């Protein structure tokens, strides 16, 4: 018994300092399930080490489904995190229904909003009805990843190849490697099945189309540009230039089983980690008559909670992240959002980034409507069904149009409070 008490005492004494000296704990939720999660983890560690009043605890939740429902529910039930990441296209779900704290003038000042230190679109991306709710952490867009060694081995110049449709198709064709039996052992271009809708969204704009009408109340994509954009992939597929069924293109690219893939800035860290993968990036290929590529952003937001006592500490954390966004950009691969960072030497020297950031003047932003989450999920499924030859292009677009028009008429909640 004595021994038990003495053990208890020792434990108590050891832990006492931790109890007595308590920091403000900030819960931070994000959806960085890819390699970028590691980078954010490092950044959080760095922030925690940089001062001794605030301790940030980070939680990664899966992208899409669980993340946003968990976040919204946690706000509804009063168990929300203090800081969260929210896609620019999903801000409305939270802002419109008054589920976020607006950012303080001091944060806007420190974060660089007031000074106009952001790319034009991003200055408004975090706003709803004139109030700023989110600080843009990064810029998300698509680009081409290609295997330099594969290009060298057949003597293709990668820089010219993505300038137009014919060059792109030509490259995809020439890069395919077959075995003696005629079976493909290495693809030229392998699309990422999860990104199909992002490709299509980019091409839709390249062919001159738009996704929704200007007021965001109706679909506008089921038109000639929409059909052409989707048909491009179907044609590639029927010409056997891309895999007959969707494959895990990220793995294939990492292991050298395809030479080109197109994906977002967020994939870079993963490719960077792969030993003996010699890859480079170029802008999204020009398939239609004019340049366009999808764009979006991760916003840092403050979910609404009962007490306001942690806003100050939470704001300090998001200011710090925005100020240090170069570290996020360099390590996670996404592009920075502040002009001062974009123009910094260190960023300008990063060649792989330049391909992405060079597209900044013709980005096709994902629409900010509250129903975009189910819409993009549906898009993904429809286009995968086309890829798997379960639906024709016309069928898929018609079905998608019916769905989008229907869901746009039904807001998720009533604006009250």
């Amino acid at each position, binding site marked *: 018994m004595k021994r038990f008490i003495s053990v208890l005492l020792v434990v108590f004494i050891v832990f006492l300092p931790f109890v007595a000296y308590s920091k403000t704990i900030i819960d931070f939720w994000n959806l960085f399930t890819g390699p970028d999660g590691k980078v954010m983890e490092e950044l959080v560690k760095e922030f925690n080490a940089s001062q001794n009043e605030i301790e940030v605890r980070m939680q990664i939740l899966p992208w*899409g*489904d*669980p993340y*946003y*429902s968990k976040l*919204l*529910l946690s706000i*509804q039930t009063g168990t929300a995190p203090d800081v969260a990441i929210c896609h620019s296209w999903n801000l409305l779900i939270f802002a419109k*229904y008054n589920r976020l704290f607006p950012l303080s003038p001091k944060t806007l000042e420190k974060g660089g909003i007031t000074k106009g230190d952001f790319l034009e679109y991003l200055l408004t991306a975090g706003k709803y009805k004139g109030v700023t709710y989110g600080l843009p952490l990064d810029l998300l867009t698509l680009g081409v990843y290609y295997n330099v060694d594969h290009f060298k081995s057949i003597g293709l110049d990668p820089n010219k190849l993505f300038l137009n449709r014919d060059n792109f198709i030509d490259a995809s064709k020439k890069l395919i490697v077959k075995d003696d039996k005629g079976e493909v052992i290495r693809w030229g271009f392998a699309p990422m*099945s999860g990104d199909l809708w992002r490709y299509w969204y980019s091409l839709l704009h390249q062919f001159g189309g738009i996704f929704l009408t200007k007021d965001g109340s109706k679909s506008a994509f089921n038109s000639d540009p929409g059909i052409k954009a989707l048909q491009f992939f179907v044609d590639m597929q029927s010409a056997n230039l891309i895999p007959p*069924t*969707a*494959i*895990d293109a990220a*793995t*294939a690219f990492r*292991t050298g*089983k395809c030479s080109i893939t197109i994906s977002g800035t967020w994939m870079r860290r993963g490719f960077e980690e792969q030993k003996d993968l010699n890859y480079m990036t170029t802008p999204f290929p020009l398939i239609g008559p004019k340049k366009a590529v999808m764009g979006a952003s991760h916003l840092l937001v403050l979910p609404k909670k009962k007490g306001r006592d942690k806003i100050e500490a939470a704001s300090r954390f998001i200011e710090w992240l925005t100020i240090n966004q170069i570290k996020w950009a360099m390590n996670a691969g996404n592009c920075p959002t502040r002009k001062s960072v974009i123009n910094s030497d260190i960023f300008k020297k990063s060649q792989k980034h330049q391909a992405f950031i060079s597209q900044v003047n013709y980005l096709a932003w994902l629409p900010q409507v509250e*129903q975009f*989450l*189910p819409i993009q*999920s*549906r898009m993904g*499924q429809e286009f*995968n*069904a*086309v*890829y*798997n030859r*379960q*639906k024709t292009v016309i069928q898929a677009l018609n*079905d998608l149009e*019916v*769905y989008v028009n*229907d869901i746009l008429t*039904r807001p*998720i*909640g*009533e604006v*009250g409070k």
Partner: protein
Amino acid sequence: MQDKRRKTGYLLFLSDRSPLIPWLFLLPFLLFFLIFMVYPMIQGLYISFTNYTILSERMSLVGLRNYLNLLRPGDLFLISLGNTFKYVALAVPVLLGCGLLFAIVVNAPIKGRMLFRTALSAPFVINVASIALLWTWILDREIGMINYYFMKLGLPKQEWIYHPFSAMLVIVMVSLWGRLGSVMLPFLAGLQDIPQEYYEAAIIDGASKWNLFRYITLPLLKPILLFAGVSQVVAGFQIFGEVVMITGGGPGYSTRVAMQHLYEVGFSWFRLGEAAAMSWILFLIIMFFTILQFRYLSGRVEY
């Protein structure tokens, strides 16, 4: 002794003859049952006629709109429902068949039958998340173990979860692997319960092995067959974890199931009214099949 106790504080309604006694025993259970089973069922029916969402301030009745929306041709719900039927039609017979067959085999007097029993039934205690992690790893097209051995044996590399057809087979296969034990063990228990004398008598009469099975084993296992059949159909219609974590419903819609659709509509896109309507349609379907099975199989089974 008896009298003393009565005097010292037994209230009248607690006396042994009181008609309240059985209900007092039942009370704790009935309380939970009413609050968490009966009430939600009724409440669910009501919600299914409203446009309630997680963000709504109040519920407003919209009549049959949710139901009509769901039953529009081409709606994702119908597609998911179709896939669920496909899954049930494939998985349940396979499960029942294999369960019965393997139960008979491991009940036979063979060496190390305990080991075989354990091996075949063990996966049924594994949680669905672990099962899914395990199988996505094994079935990975590029670096998975199964494709590795396929290549070794000179067989073509399989697409597995990337092809609509094989993706459904993967789900069925994984369910068979993971649920076999829950079907096999009841059968095994039933087999052990059949008195050996029945067989001995029949063998003396010169019955063939098939006839032993057909006229002794099967009829005596009928209650278990019924129970396993009904519970597997109910479980089959509720397939969720395996699909969500292995194929995610893809490729395209090919393995999207009803439960997954309900989950997404209700809890990812916040439309609880629609989700409740879905659950009632599903409930009616399951009821139909359950009653059908009871009618068809029960015969003289007594509960």
